């Protein structure tokens, strides 16, 4: 059931009916079977339950509330419209809405039924805010290896994004790194006073942007193989950058990406204590796409966002 508009009337139904993400009136008469309703929010405006939402919530052990489903649906619909894509998988490989109602939903990949993440060593989950690392042992394994499983994320056309609700000056937010100084994927929203961005290049290569805090959306994206074909974004701005290292891209590191830290060849490192609400990986992000992503997610945060 991909689209539900207004009133649904079911007469003389025998068998199983499953309704998810429905907003509107439902009238059932003479129903003789099992009816499962989740996310039904009674009378209201017409509700277009997006196909990506329905795929995402299929099989959840703990169902999400109607309000949460509506927020997720709005996020998906507006993101697709803003980016002019039909499916989230047209631009992204993974999106984790960590600011979610349940840990289960937070660790699910919104893009497709692959690469659901794993919470390792109990990072702290706070409903509708995100996961917080402890800076010494807890992290999230995305179970996504961009080298072997990347579709939109490719060596010279790719992006990484994180949304942080708290301000600290240490640790990485997402990464996968070969034995140093091998090739790395690395984004830190704030580390020693700077955004650090490295994508599919030697460990000595970084795009660095001096920054006052770690709050909001940080994106590092690449379009081309040169060291300066990558850019850091903070919210809806493009802060000034300096570069360390001038090597061109070499290869995508062959490790799962970790969130709340960096996967250092299979060992967690550069762990952070920041609270992270969103993480994604996908294709190159233009400034126009950046603004859409920032606006859609800030709206999704529904008052718990931190962009001023």
């Amino acid at each position, binding site marked *: 059931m991909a689209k539900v508009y207004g009133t649904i009337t079911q007469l003389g139904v025998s068998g199983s009916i499953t309704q998810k993400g429905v907003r509107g009136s439902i009238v059932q008469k003479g129903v003789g079977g099992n009816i499962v309703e989740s996310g039904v929010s009674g009378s209201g405006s017409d509700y277009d339950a997006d196909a990506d939402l329905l795929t995402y919530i299929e099989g959840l052990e703990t169902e999400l509330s109607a309000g949460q489903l509506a927020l997720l649906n709005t996020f998906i619909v507006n993101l697709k419209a803003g980016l002019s894509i039909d499916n989230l998988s047209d631009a992204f490989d993974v999106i984790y809405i960590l600011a979610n109602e349940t840990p289960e939903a937070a660790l699910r990949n919104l893009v497709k039924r692959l690469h659901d993440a794993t919470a390792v060593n109990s990072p702290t989950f706070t409903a509708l805010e995100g996961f917080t690392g402890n800076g010494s042992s807890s992290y999230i394994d995305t179970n996504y290896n961009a080298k072997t499983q990347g579709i939109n994320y490719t060596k010279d056309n790719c992006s990484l994004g994180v949304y942080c609700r708290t301000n600290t000056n240490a640790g990485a937010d997402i990464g996968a790194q070969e034995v140093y100084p091998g090739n790395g994927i690395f984004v830190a929203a704030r580390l020693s006073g700077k955004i650090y961005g490295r994508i599919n290049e030697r460990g000595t290569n970084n795009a660095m942007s001096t920054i006052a805090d770690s709050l909001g959306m940080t994106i590092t994206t690449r379009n081309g193989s040169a060291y300066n074909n990558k850019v850091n974004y903070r919210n809806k701005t493009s802060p000034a950058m300096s570069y360390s290292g001038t090597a061109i891209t070499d290869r995508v590191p062959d490790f799962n990406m970790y969130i709340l830290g960096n996967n250092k060849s299979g060992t967690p490192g*550069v762990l952070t204590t920041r609270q992270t609400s969103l993480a994604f990986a996908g294709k190159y992000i233009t400034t126009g796409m950046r603004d859409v992503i920032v606006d859609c997610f800030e709206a999704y945060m529904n008052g718990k966002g931190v962009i001023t």
Partner: protein
Amino acid sequence: MNLIILTKEQAENIRGRYGRYSALDPIELPDGMFMLPEDCLRDKDLKDAYEKMNEAVTANGTKELTELSKVKEVKAGEYYIDDITPAPEEPVETTNNLVKCLKDADKIDITDSNIFLKSSPQIMIKR
């Protein structure tokens, strides 16, 4: 934050996936022991590991992990996290900054980037 201390054998025995979306991955300490955050004992998704974690607590006890920036003296045998050390331009070179103190010593923070120990400044901290 309190740590559950595990031997290498206990760490290998408990490492792996639990529940639908959780896992345990004990982290090696500078002295060859391993640790998990005590929060794991309250994580419902890790209930299948409670027995093994409690066995480790009974056998090895727990230890506090303190931020080095928040203490005025370091004590022998205690674990600290060196949150003061800034990352270099190549931040992936940094570790998880877990340290263990080998001797008691006063500590003075001269700058944000250097920790100075009043007495016996050499090899006071093992990473």
